[in-house]
């Protein structure tokens, strides 16, 4: 079949690439530890599977799957090291941060699918309960428990630590928290041990080991074999309960959704942006998490026809940049094709304070200027970028733009001074201070935006 053929072709190159990338990761010292753990894990899993078949216990098998999940989490950890090393390629333009998320998602989903298979097997076993040999049951339990706890606590697994912190508490955690809260109500001294959020992996390891111990006891005392199946179901359900919130969280990252916890902050920023001068509307906001934590986004901002696109762009970017690291803002005007507006003064209107002394453009309606109500309709000075190439076009829009006068210049004077001084320090450092044209632009910004930003501290 064709699919198989083409798959083999891609597989060979994939293996080659894999070994190459593996060498890259292996260069890191930290990954040696993980590889060591992985090797021990494989050994341990092998033994456990052997004991599983010798005891014929499905509960132990379910518990062994947790060990296999540990192996996946170690692989995820390796991947996160690899991701740190790799740079974005042209094809994967966002970098490989998401691979971490995908690995977490895949391993949690695989754990749940394994649990699903356990459930299926247990249903089969309920029909016909085989005999369980307790010989290696307890040994296997403690080997797996020790190893799981050792791995969980000694390997710093960044992606899983993040997800287990960020995801909603699992069903198991909730119950343990409930139980421990009421326990602490009776014995307050225990609150320091039980009240903080339990690590879900440690919790499920302990709970599974507990279930297995009960199984062992009941089988030893009563030869009650069905308890093995029951505890397998319990372990499987607990596994699903533990993994489900994590896979939901990482799945939501993969679905490019806005994380709920930043929505409040984002709303605040977008409200701030929409109150910027010249901004009419913010739409098509797409914000989503790239990897764990870093936010990417794009937004369309509709602005007034006479507003300065670059200025608005800079301010919008500046506001959102605090939260969204990979940001694209599309500025967008209605009816920009109208002949009256194909010209520079659109931008020039923003820059209307008296210190545009460099530009030698004769003010058209200079007598109407009022420095306190700096209307957008004053093409007295064009910004430097327009003064040379399109001088004549400054005149056309005046009539039209005059109608959109807005009184917003009240904060002009106190706003400009700190900004100006700050700018000359900051900008002077890389040796750009000579460009006076810039300053003409900057001195005006705070006057316009300072009034609108409602006490937002200037950077």
């Amino acid at each position, binding site marked *: 079949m*064709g699919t198989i053929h083409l798959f083999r072709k891609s597989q060979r190159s994939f293996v080659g690439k894999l070994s190459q990338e593996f060498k890259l990761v292996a260069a890191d010292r930290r990954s040696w530890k993980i590889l060591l753990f992985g090797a021990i894990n494989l050994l341990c899993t092998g033994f456990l599977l052997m004991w599983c078949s010798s005891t014929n216990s499905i509960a132990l098998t379910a518990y062994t799957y947790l060990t296999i999940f540990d192996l996946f989490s170690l692989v995820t950890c390796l991947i996160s090291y690899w991701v740190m090393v790799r740079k974005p390629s042209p094809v994967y333009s966002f970098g490989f941060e998401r691979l971490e998320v995908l690995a977490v998602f895949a391993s949690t989903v695989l754990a749940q699918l394994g649990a699903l298979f356990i459930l299926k097997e247990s249903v089969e076993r309920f029909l016909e309960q085989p005999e369980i040999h307790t010989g290696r049951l307890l040994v296997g339990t403690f080997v797996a428990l020790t190893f799981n706890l050792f791995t969980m606590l000694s390997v710093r697994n960044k992606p899983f630590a993040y997800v287990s912190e960020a995801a909603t508490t699992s069903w198991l955690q909730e119950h343990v928290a409930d139980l421990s809260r009421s326990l602490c109500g009776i014995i307050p001294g225990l609150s320091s041990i039980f009240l903080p959020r339990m690590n879900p992996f440690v919790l499920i390891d302990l709970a599974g080991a507990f279930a297995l111990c009960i199984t062992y006891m009941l089988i030893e005392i009563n030869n009650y074999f069905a308890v093995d199946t029951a505890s397998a179901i319990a372990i499987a359900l607990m596994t699903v309960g533990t993994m489900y919130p994590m896979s939901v969280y990482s799945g939501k990252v993969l679905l490019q959704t806005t994380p*709920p916890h930043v929505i409040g902050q984002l709303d605040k920023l977008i409200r701030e942006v929409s109150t910027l001068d010249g901004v009419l509307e913010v739409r098509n906001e797409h914000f989503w998490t790239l990897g764990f934590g870093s936010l990417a986004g794009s937004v369309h901002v509709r602005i007034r026809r006479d507003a300065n696109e670059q200025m608005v*762009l800079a301010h919008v970017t500046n506001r959102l940049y605090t939260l969204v690291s990979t940001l694209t803002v599309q500025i967008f005007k209605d009816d920009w094709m109208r002949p009256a507006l194909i010209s520079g003064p659109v931008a020039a209107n923003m820059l209307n304070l008296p210190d545009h002394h460099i530009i030698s453009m004769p003010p058209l309606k200079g007598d109407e200027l009022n420095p306190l109500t700096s209307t957008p309709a004053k093409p007295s000075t064009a910004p430097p970028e327009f003064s040379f190439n399109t001088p004549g076009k400054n005149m056309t829009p005046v009539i039209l733009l005059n109608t959109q006068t807005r009184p917003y210049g009240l904060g002009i004077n106190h706003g400009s001074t700190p900004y100006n001084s700050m700018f000359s320090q900051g900008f002077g450092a890389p040796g750009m201070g000579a460009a006076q044209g810039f300053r003409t632009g900057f001195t005006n910004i705070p006057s316009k935006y300072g009034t609108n930003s409602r006490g937002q501290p200037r950077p």
Partner: protein
Amino acid sequence: MEEKYSSHALAGGGSLGPVDVPSARFTKYIVLLCFTKFLKALGLFESYDLLKVVHIVQFIFILKLGSAFFMVLFQKPFSSGKTITKHQWIKIFKHAVAGCIISLLWFFGLTLCGPLRTLLLFEHSDIVVISLLNVLFTSSGGGPAKSKVESWSSLIMPFTTVIFFVVVLDFYVDSICSAKMEVSKSARYGSFLICISALLFGNFWTHPITDQLRAMNKPAHQESTEHVLSGGVVVSAIFFILSANILASPSKRGQKGTLVGYSPEGTPLYNFMGDALQHSSQSIPRFIKESLKQILEESDSRHIFYFLCLNLVFTFVELFYGVLTNSLGLISDGFHMLFDCSALVMGLFAALMSRWKATRIFSYGYGRIEILSGFINGLFLMVIAFFLFVESVARLIDPPELDTYMLAPVSVGGLIVNLIGVCAFSHAHGHVHGASQGGYHSHDHSHSHHGHSHGHNHSHSDHGHSHSHGHSHGSSGGGMNANMRGVFLHILADTLGSIGVIVSTILIEQFGWFFADPLCSLFIAVLIFLSVIPLIKDACQVLLLRLPPENEKEINIALEKIQKIEGLISYRDPHFWRHSASVVAGTIHIQVMSDVLEQRIVQQVTGVLKDAGVNNLTVQVEKEAYFQHMSGLSTGFHDVLAMTKQMESMKYYKDGTYIM
């Protein structure tokens, strides 16, 4: 004794009036409660003795009669209070019947397991009832509980004590205490006290000390071992007290709703359990109806749904015969089909959800769910293949005898069902066979945009969807999204399984090769594994935001074209990715010369990239002024340095034409 009770009852009746009791008198009520519970336990022990001589029905009749007599006397339900409406009468009747049944069971239990255990168990449930149904009782008024049965009086002394202790007094004191103290508090104390007193009585009932209490009972009892305490009872009593304590303490939270979080406006949000329950219970039939309607609305979900039904029917048939014949191939095939059904259910949900409108959180729409579901389906198939592999290897080492009876017909049936599925799905999505045979490139091409000519016409996005569709359709000519691919692969794997079973049956019947069955399973496992790899790979690529391979060439050409736009200096950060089957999103930053109009550039770039298949585009047009503004706005030295570098990258910077 009589005087005491009546005085207590009267005191209780008196304080049922206006409430002006200071809170410092809590202890008084607790003492009262303590005393009542003690007496109640006493009454129950007495009634246990009584039940030995009186039949349970008679006992309950007399008990109810007596309690009702006193209740009517004290409460005067017919003369005072509001008149009871017809509706309320029906409720009262129902309540009375239920109450009779409960008390019948209660006393029957009393005869069976003795007073101590009954107390422990029944009081435990009492707390749950009180804390949960408190609202219900208060809303239906005090009437029903009081006018349960008609009035009459009894003459026998023990009956009087039992009636007073167990019903009347307990009712009044409970109502007083729950009115004066919190309900949960009184319930907690009550259960605690009644457990303790039950334990005490259990210990001392046969003791000579209690002879005075028992002296008023006419029936005599001989056995002395029936009230002996065992260790288990003590332990369970302690646990009952503890659990009652725990249950009663957080009950306040359940009534008032739990704090979930804060809304964006800053108002606290509560979660009311009752509301949610009511809501779900009301709308379940409507929900099913509406979701069915939604399912049948579109071809994708309709196909999945019909096939799901067919599959479910067949799966049970197959499982049944598989268990009968003990064939690994058949049972695993049956269970695999059952699991397929879960995969189909997931595919169905994904197909449904992918049509939901975009929300705040899912800002691009839900289309990507199909890809995620395809990915999960792929993982699922891999796990299936893995287990099948392991099991068949185990069976290969130790091949079991199996019965081929009914094997062939069932597997042929399975094959037919699966072939129907394969035909339906491949018919709905034209080029599946072409895709699976035509090598990698055409394979990739085939699953680009089809399935959305009908599905996403009503899509949320306000960019010109139709434009991009018209274009992409010309090049790709049909295919399916990841979700449908996953479902299709499942069905294909099933078909393979059926074929494998048929082949192994033939081999076993003709040649007696019992290793053929595991061998076939092995082969099928490998086939499933191999066929699922491309699906997983593609889904991974989409989930990792790769440049869509089917648009890669066009996008590269488009980027070259963009380079040549007049007035454009350079571009940076070009990100293009496939969000879902219908949405290819992109963002790009473009640096232009100062004298060109941004909007024109945006229009040109958007046009070029739309032709390349990108239909959700954000273009950031930057001029030099932007970097100047940014460096002005940014505080840190490093930011300024980075911005300066950006500016230097603009080649017109150096000749100084635009900068003074």
